[in-house]
């Protein structure tokens, strides 16, 4: 049986048995090779579920929206499972709130160009790390040699070039907040941009305000980013947001030891919410 | 005959630019409610408006909010403001003589004409009284045009009742005007309170104020639950939906039906409203 058939069959069984209240997967969109997230509550809709190499969206964030209805079943690839781990570690959900149907991911493709998605070529954990059962086998995928290649490219520029480079990014930003809304780390009940009373960030769209938003976003998710690359994929202006996220990750790697978020469920504090007495001292 | 409310009666030029006005009088109504009288810098009335219309009152450095003009004379307009958010908090820091920004008037007004000759039943809760008061004051000013007037007003504590002087000393002595006040709960700070205790809707039902064959018009303003329960009570008592008037509230920014956020279906509260009859609301797709 193909993974898609197993997913459909298991979703049907799980919903029928009442073990889960909702199941989250993908369905086909209107256009060729287009997929879109699907949330079903009725076992009869299980036939709509698809799994193919164009399932670009991650699903984990939807769990928080549908959790009120009861236990949630969902398909998880590597990135989805790390997002679930992140949500559990951040105490947004509990492990027993979700039933995870794992599926090996060969890397997804862009539906228009048929090229592998950037986020998938950079992915280091394509197979689920946490799951209750697997639909099919793990998939093989090449792991990128240097996780921080794109950061190093930027670092190689002069300071003035980097200023211009990032200002051109902020000049393009329309502040739709899609990067925030899709991010499994952005789980604040109220985001700082919505706190109008405090007025952290002004409502004008200009380079300065956009930089304020962009840098704050990176610092807020800094030590939790699971490198799913969804922020970059959803950006309507195609801004290279992972170049910012990965910079922080690279520095934490260098300074505080090997860092990768969302690999295991644990109650340990993450890198920036803890400290070591022996941390490097630069400010003496 | 059903009450006719005018809608979309907007007029005016340069709707988004405020004028600078001066505060001439501040009344502390309750611990968190103040009334402000405003005049233009040369001492004139800022704008002419009908009872129930809105004004965008604010501080240039903090922002502006939409309020109902709670009272007016030939010289000034008055707004009654409860301290709930950023701008209203700053408004409460004003002193007499300070400069504020004001634009308006916006929205429609109470149907003073088509209510003529009818009995009036005003129902309000807490800070819902000021919008209703604009109509009430008009009725008292033109006393001979209206029949019996009832005011049913409640607040959660004695201290939360606004316009206490008028409520207890002035209005009860007006001819054929009956003021009914209740508190939601016993108020330990005011054990001397002899009036009724209870939520507005059950209290209203005990008063036995019927529709008088369509000759009584009910005017409601209050929070979401007060509005809902009082509507139900009135309908149960036999009121026609067209004879129940209410003034609605949503967040507003432009005041002229363009910025989009205060829509109820295709209607904008700032432009077509804020005053609608229940019969009209029933035909709208409302999130309010």
């Amino acid at each position: 049986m193909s993974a898609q058939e197993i997913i459909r069959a298991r979703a049907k069984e799980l919903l029928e048995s009442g073990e889960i209240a909702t199941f989250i997967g993908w369905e086909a969109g209107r256009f060729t090779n287009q997929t879109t997230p699907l949330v079903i509550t009725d076992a009869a809709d299980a036939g709509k579920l698809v799994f193919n190499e164009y399932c670009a969206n991650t699903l984990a964030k939807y769990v928080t929206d549908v959790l009120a209805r009861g236990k949630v079943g969902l398909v998880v690839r590597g990135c989805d499972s790390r997002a679930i781990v992140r949500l559990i570690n951040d105490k947004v959900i509990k492990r027993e709130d979700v039933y995870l149907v794992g599926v090996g991911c060969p890397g997804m493709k862009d539906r228009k160009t048929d090229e592998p998605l950037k986020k998938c070529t950079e992915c280091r954990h394509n197979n689920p790390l946490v799951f209750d059962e697997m639909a099919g086998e793990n998939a093989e995928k090449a792991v990128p040699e240097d996780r921080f290649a794109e950061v190093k490219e930027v670092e190689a520029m002069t300071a003035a070039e980097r200023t211009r480079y990032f200002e051109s990014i902020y000049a393009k930003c329309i502040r739709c907040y899609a990067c925030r809304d899709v991010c499994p780390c952005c789980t604040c009940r109220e985001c700082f941009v919505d706190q109008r009373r405090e007025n952290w960030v002004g409502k004008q769209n200009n380079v300065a305000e956009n930089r304020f938003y962009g840098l704050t976003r990176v610092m807020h998710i800094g030590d939790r980013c699971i490198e799913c690359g969804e922020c970059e994929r959803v950006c309507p202006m195609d801004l290279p947001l992972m170049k910012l996220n990965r910079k922080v990750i690279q520095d934490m790697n260098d300074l505080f030891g090997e860092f990768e978020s969302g690999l295991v469920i644990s109650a340990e504090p993450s890198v920036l919410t803890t400290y070591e007495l022996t941390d490097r001292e630069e400010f003496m | 005959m059903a009450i006719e409310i005018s809608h979309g009666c907007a007029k005016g030029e340069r709707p988004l630019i405020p004028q600078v006005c001066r505060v001439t009088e501040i009344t502390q109504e309750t611990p968190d409610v103040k009334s402000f009288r405003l005049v233009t810098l040369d001492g004139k009335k800022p704008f002419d408006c009908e009872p129930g219309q809105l004004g965008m009152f604010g501080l240039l450095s903090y922002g502006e909010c939409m309020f109902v003009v709670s009272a007016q004379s030939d010289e000034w307009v008055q707004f009654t403001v409860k301290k709930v958010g950023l701008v209203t908090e700053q408004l409460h820091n004003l002193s007499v003589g300070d400069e504020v920004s004001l634009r308006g008037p916006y929205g429609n007004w109470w149907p003073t004409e088509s209510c003529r000759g009818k009995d009036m039943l005003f129902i309000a809760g807490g800070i819902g009284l000021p919008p209703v008061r604009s109509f009430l004051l008009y009725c008292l000013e033109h006393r001979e045009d209206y029949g019996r007037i009832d005011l049913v007003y409640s607040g959660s504590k004695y201290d939360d009742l606004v316009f206490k002087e008028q409520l207890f000393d002035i209005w009860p002595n007006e001819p054929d005007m009956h003021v009914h006040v209740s508190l939601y709960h016993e108020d330990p700070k005011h054990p001397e309170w002899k009036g009724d205790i209870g939520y507005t809707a059950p209290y209203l039902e005990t008063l036995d104020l019927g529709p008088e064959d369509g000759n009584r018009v009910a005017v409601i303003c209050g929070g979401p639950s007060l509005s809902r329960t009082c509507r139900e009570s009135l309908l149960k008592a036999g009121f026609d939906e067209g004879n129940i008037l209410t003034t609605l509230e949503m967040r507003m920014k432009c005041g002229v039906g363009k910025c989009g956020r205060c829509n109820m279906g295709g209607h904008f509260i700032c432009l077509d409203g804020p005053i609608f009859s229940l019969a009209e609301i029933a035909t709208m797709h409302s999130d309010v």
Partner: protein
Amino acid sequence: MPVVENNANAIPEDWEPKIIAFCCHWCTYTGADLAGLNRMNYPANVRVLRIPCSGRMNPQYVIEALNKGCDGVLVCGCHPGDCHYVTGNYYARRRMMIFKRLLEYEGLEPGRFQVKWISGAEAGKFRDTVMKAVEDVRALGPINLTREIPYFELPAMPDDDEEAFNAVPEEVFPEEVNA
């Protein structure tokens, strides 16, 4: 368009760097006070803002300060181990190390954002740090970032604000001063 390396070669006349220093209440702020008591001279380009602990230093403050017209930002706290709240500056150390690198990644010159540990007794170190920061930023020239509000020219920093200059500093925790 030629890439302007920095503004160091085009420093306008009369230009004075504006630097904001976020100082921990328990050490650096006291150190600054001591510097004043000892009548140490240091440039008036620095405005000191008191924060309860360097651990309270929100990275957003730095971005906002740079956006709103400062040419440099200084963050000062207690030496590691001396935090009044025991661990605040350990967290700050990690966070500021990451944040400083991020700002530099975005093109900010290292001299414009500095972090230093200065105790309440180190009045001299406070003076030296401030003087060095001012000299660093002065050498760099006006900041090379696009600023806030292209719409209206920002008036100068509080230099022209007589009210602020003549204001009597508020008494800070008088009972502790007495204790």
